[in-house]
């Protein structure tokens, strides 16, 4: 890969980040809703504020957050602050900054999504590849079928089904939250770590079962195409054994488009993660977002969305940088 390609990709990344920032800036302003006023209106509905003082307070806060400046100036300030990784402060958990909220919750989300996505990608692709491989034993090929049928069920629904059957009925797993109530987090204690893992099992299973079918299905389709390729045929003519053909000629080639598919699926991965965290009440970016939606904490909503968008776009470009390592054909383009 040449410097030119790298530069082009990075410029693309910057364009994406800039577009996402612009969208998150302008959409809320089109609706002409003042976040400060919304927040206080919500507070006053729950009682506690005298309406007389409210306008003054709102005006003061508007100045504080720069909401009284012309829109264009706000926009420039906004883009500048993003470039400084400054996403503002939370109304709800003032004076916590959005960045602080993100750094606190990110490890949870990252770990859960990384583990489940990698597992799902590996298992799904293996199952799909085997399902399309005519020489695999029938029972092995049949394993793929239930996963293909599950492919239409999103992880959020899977989560509710699992909660009902495994946690509620069979009592094999907790009904939610990050660790047992009353336990004091202590990352040096194995008992605590096990407790956390125990609480993560069901969410992880929901994410896994809800996403694996997609890989099985696309890999099966890819596998059928690759099998018809001349080089697989010639490999058989060479007298290579089944496992060698499967691994070096069939799987390696069928996986290439799947890697691109992984990059494209990252948006869906985080979307599912956000929902799952909210259903299970796990600490994480998704839960921060869900709570912010519930309490009209706008800067947190925009900040988290922007952060996730940037993260996904960056990971996507990163996967594209990895791709040439797998496919020699694009290496010297």
């Amino acid at each position, binding site marked *: 890969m040449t410097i030119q390609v790298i530069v082009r990709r990075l410029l693309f990344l910057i364009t994406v980040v800039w577009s996402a920032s612009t969208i998150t800036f302008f959409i809320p302003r089109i609706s002409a809703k003042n976040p400060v006023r919304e927040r206080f209106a919500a507070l006053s509905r729950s009682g506690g504020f005298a309406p007389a003082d409210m306008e003054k307070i709102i005006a003061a806060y508007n100045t504080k957050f720069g909401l009284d400046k012309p829109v264009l100036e706000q926009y420039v300030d906004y883009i500048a602050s993003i470039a400084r990784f400054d996403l503002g402060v939370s109304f709800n958990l003032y004076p916590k900054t959005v960045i602080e909220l993100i750094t606190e919750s990110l490890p949870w989300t990252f770990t859960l999504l990384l583990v489940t996505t990698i597992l799902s990608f590996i298992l799904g692709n293996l199952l799909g590849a085997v399902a399309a491989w005519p020489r695999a034993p029938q029972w092995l090929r049949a394993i793929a079928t239930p996963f293909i049928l599950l492919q239409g069920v999103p992880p959020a629904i899977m989560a509710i089904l699992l909660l009902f059957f495994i946690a509620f009925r069979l009592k094999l797993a907790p009904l939610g939250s990050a660790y047992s109530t009353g336990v004091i987090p202590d990352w040096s204690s194995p008992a605590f770590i096990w407790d956390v893992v125990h609480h993560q099992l069901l969410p992880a299973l929901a994410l896994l079962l809800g996403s694996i079918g997609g890989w099985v299905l696309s890999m099966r389709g890819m596998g059928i195409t690759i099998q018809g390729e001349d*080089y697989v045929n010639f490999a058989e003519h*060479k007298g290579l054994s089944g496992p060698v053909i499967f691994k070096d000629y069939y799987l*390696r080639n069928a996986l*290439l488009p799947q890697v691109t598919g992984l990059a494209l699926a990252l948006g869906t991965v985080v979307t599912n993660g956000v929902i799952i965290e909210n259903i299970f009440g796990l600490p994480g970016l998704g839960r921060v977002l869900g709570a912010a939606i519930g309490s009209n904490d706008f800067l947190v909503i925009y900040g988290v969305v922007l952060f996730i968008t940037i993260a996904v776009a960056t990971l996507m470009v990163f996967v594209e940088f990895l791709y040439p390592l797998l496919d020699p054909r694009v290496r010297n383009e």
Partner: protein
Amino acid sequence: MTPVLEIKNLQVTYYTDAGRARALDGVSLSLLPGEKLGLVGESGSGKSTMALAMMRMIKPPGRIEGGSVIVDGTDLTQLTDEQMLKARLSKIAYIPQGAMNSLNPVLRIGAQMTDAIRAHDPKASKAQVEERCLASLESVDLKRDVFKMYAHELSGGMKQRVCIAIGILLQPKVIIADEPTSALDVVTQRQVMETIDRVQKQIGAAVILIGHDMGLMAQFVDKVAVMYTGRIMELSTVREMFTDPKHPYAQALIKSLPNLENKGVFQGIPGLAPALLRLPGGCSFHPRCIQVMDHCKTQRPRDSTLAGGRTVECHLYSEKA
């Protein structure tokens, strides 16, 4: 000399939803070491099925129904699957249309040669294996650098040479080359054919060359077999085939070739090759034959051996015989 390849009454059937299709209907032939046979015919005549059947690579819904393929004294149809894996490439090798897509795009050429040797000789040392690969590459006029290259870095002619180099890695007794020159330009075609010619002489292998370019074939093979609807209609030396074809179908094929005398007058064979599912009774060629007789429509002709060992499957000659 004893023949190195003997095919006896080879039969292949494809079982489809629409019925049984006899893709090979009792094919017999034999080749001496070093002999070169050209296999010609229209598409669907059974040329490629023949190659697949010899390699025992017919896949469902197709099946080898009977007959034998004896290479160097071993009947391939009697081997276990395991033994057949070993026989491929070492006894009988297949060279595909390499210019297209026959090389794995993500493996280096060297890896695709090494794995072939390893499959047959797992104990060979790394240096030995590499030396054999490089020697093979050199014998097809490729540089040693090709060993470290990928398929997309090679031209069509070079890819075809790599396929030949792989085919001769284990010095097989029989080489089947399936249209090795299609999709190549005319100059490269010639070079590739010369390469095949040279390496087969070096290792003394018998060659079956499959193709429909009779002109190119005439320059390289010793014998020509004309196939039609899964049967060999005529098998003669290349000189006899081009100067005095016996079977009406062979005559029509030769006549359809452009040459200096009938320049510009293109003569095809009237009618279409019949679908294998609905073969006409009697001789399968009779609906298109200009010398058709009454009993051609009901009785299938037998092989008649004419002077010089050429065989023809036609009633015109069975009466004389």
